[in-house]
């Protein structure tokens, strides 16, 4: 007889560790499955990279006509682009496929995920995990490598530390948004398009200085969808600029807290969504 593992009272740390190792295991399995077609991976990675690079071209074209947009120079905007794009890219790699949740619900395949002893969120997030997704990280990495030495910034230790911190919190904020959107799909079954607007649209929004957009709109965005914390607020600190909206100084350091809060909300929403599915069977 096979011994049956019972993990009813495993601690939170153990559970988190298991979630991570399960994630890696599943992702690795998908990578191996995809690795049977190496040429296709290479081409698709290239395609992903080029698509991601188009945004850079757009920014450069705009700055070909004017030296400053809303008071920001090309190098500063590229800094905003690089940080948000890297955060978003990483979150997309980790959780991007959760947007397929609605499909799983409609096809009834979610049931198959629910009978396994693993969180359905991990199972969906790792689905079709392919190395090609890493292609989207290259353009922002290159941009940051180019821009960081060139931004007119007095690199104090605080500013240096802020760059990795803002990248990490940005990623956490986007991750929270992915899960939140997946949870929303339990309610709005055809919301695929709507959730895309929040995540991809959000990624687009943060690539430009917030002052480009109307003040009230940005205020709304800052508080309703805390995208401004992905890179805008911390970037103001790094670039040593006053906040054009006049928000208090501490907001520039609030990104990690915003990320944590958003993840907590997302976790609650996910559980509620799953409970709703399990009581309605949609």
């Amino acid at each position: 007889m096979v011994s049956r593992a019972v993990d009813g009272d495993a601690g939170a740390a153990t559970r988190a560790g298991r979630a991570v190792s399960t994630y890696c295991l599943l992702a690795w399995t998908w990578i191996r499955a995809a690795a049977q077609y190496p040429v296709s991976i290479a081409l698709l990675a290239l395609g992903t990279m080029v698509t991601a690079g188009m945004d850079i071209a757009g920014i450069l074209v705009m700055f070909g006509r004017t030296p400053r947009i809303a008071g920001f120079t090309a190098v500063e905007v590229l800094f905003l682009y690089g940080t948000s794009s890297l955060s978003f890219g990483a979150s997309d790699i980790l959780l991007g496929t959760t947007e397929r949740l609605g499909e799983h619900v409609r096809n009834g395949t979610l049931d198959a995920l629910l009978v396994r002893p693993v969180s359905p969120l991990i199972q969906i997030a790792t689905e079709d995990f392919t190395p090609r997704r890493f292609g989207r990280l290259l353009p922002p990495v290159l941009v940051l490598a180019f821009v960081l030495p060139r931004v007119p910034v007095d690199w104090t230790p605080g500013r240096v530390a802020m760059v990795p911190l803002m990248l990490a919190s940005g990623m956490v904020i986007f991750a929270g948004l992915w899960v939140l959107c997946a949870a929303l799909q339990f309610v709005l079954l055809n919301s695929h398009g709507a959730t895309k607007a929040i995540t991809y649209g959000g990624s687009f929004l943060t690539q430009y200085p917030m002052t480009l957009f109307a003040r009230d709109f940005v205020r709304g965005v800052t508080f309703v969808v805390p995208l401004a914390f992905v890179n805008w607020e911390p970037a103001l600190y790094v670039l040593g600029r006053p906040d054009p909206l006049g928000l208090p100084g501490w907001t520039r350091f609030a990104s990690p807290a915003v990320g944590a809060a958003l993840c907590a909300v997302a976790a609650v929403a996910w559980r509620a969504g799953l409970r709703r599915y399990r009581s309605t069977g949609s």
Partner: protein
Amino acid sequence: MIEMTDVTKTFVLRRRTGRGPRRERTPVRAVDGVTFTVDRGEFLGYLGPNGAGKSTTIKMLTGILTPTSGRIRVAGLDPSRARTTLARRIGVVFGQRTTLWWDLPLKDSLTLVRRLYRVEEHAYRTRLAELTALLELEPFLATPVRQLSLGQRMRGDLAAALLHDPELLVLDEPTIGLDVVSKATVRGFLARLNAERGTTILLTTHDLGDIERLCRRVMIIDHGRPAFDGDLAALRRAAGADRQLIVELAAPVPPVELDGVEVTGVEGPRQTLRLPDGANAASVVASLAARYEIRDIALRETGIEEIVARLYRGDQELSTPVSP
């Protein structure tokens, strides 16, 4: 192994009525007060017409759906609260869709299942060898699941559901769409699993061959309510499944007259007689032969298909009450 006490599941259907965004909400009772117990080692067939509440019951047993009211215990656990813990102790197979990973070779899917269910390496090897032999998996272990035939896929799914040696195996229409040979393999395998390992098996099906061949106990659910619970013989009795005696006489005669026997059809020299429940066919034949010259004789039992069809249509009042 399974205890269901007065379980109900109500869905709310939202239908658009007329113009505008207003929707009418109609509650539908998919499962309406179902109570039953399944003991360890039982092999239970769960029957019912489409939409009777079979799948809903299965989903509640496996923790996918939360019941609206009532109490469920599977292996001592509340499925909807302890879904993942329960998942390690039961195996679930959906005939209509695979739980395997579509793009992975079967072998990789099974390795992954081992890791997800945390089956020890040693136990896994023994178990895999056993399942490979019994289900004849060898020829397609390296094939991606998406390229498998339906029969192969079903065998793969069975193997995946059993790697962690579950106490209970739940099958939702496991033989749907399978050819005769695959069906036989799957049925033979399930019978052995139940007999030799003592695994409790619950299966839903529309294929009455599954029931006749496998299930010692049958439960029928209709409109969300249990309509029958008992063994096959009881089902035949309950549905008034009488036997028919078809006799071919030497010459056409008026309907034969015999105590307790009713003639239901006359076709030239061939007459169809209905034997009451418990009648001795041999003595009926003997008394017939004493009075008439008989050319040929055939005894026909009402098929299980016909019995169930009658039950579904509801033209038969069941004489055996459902056991509590």
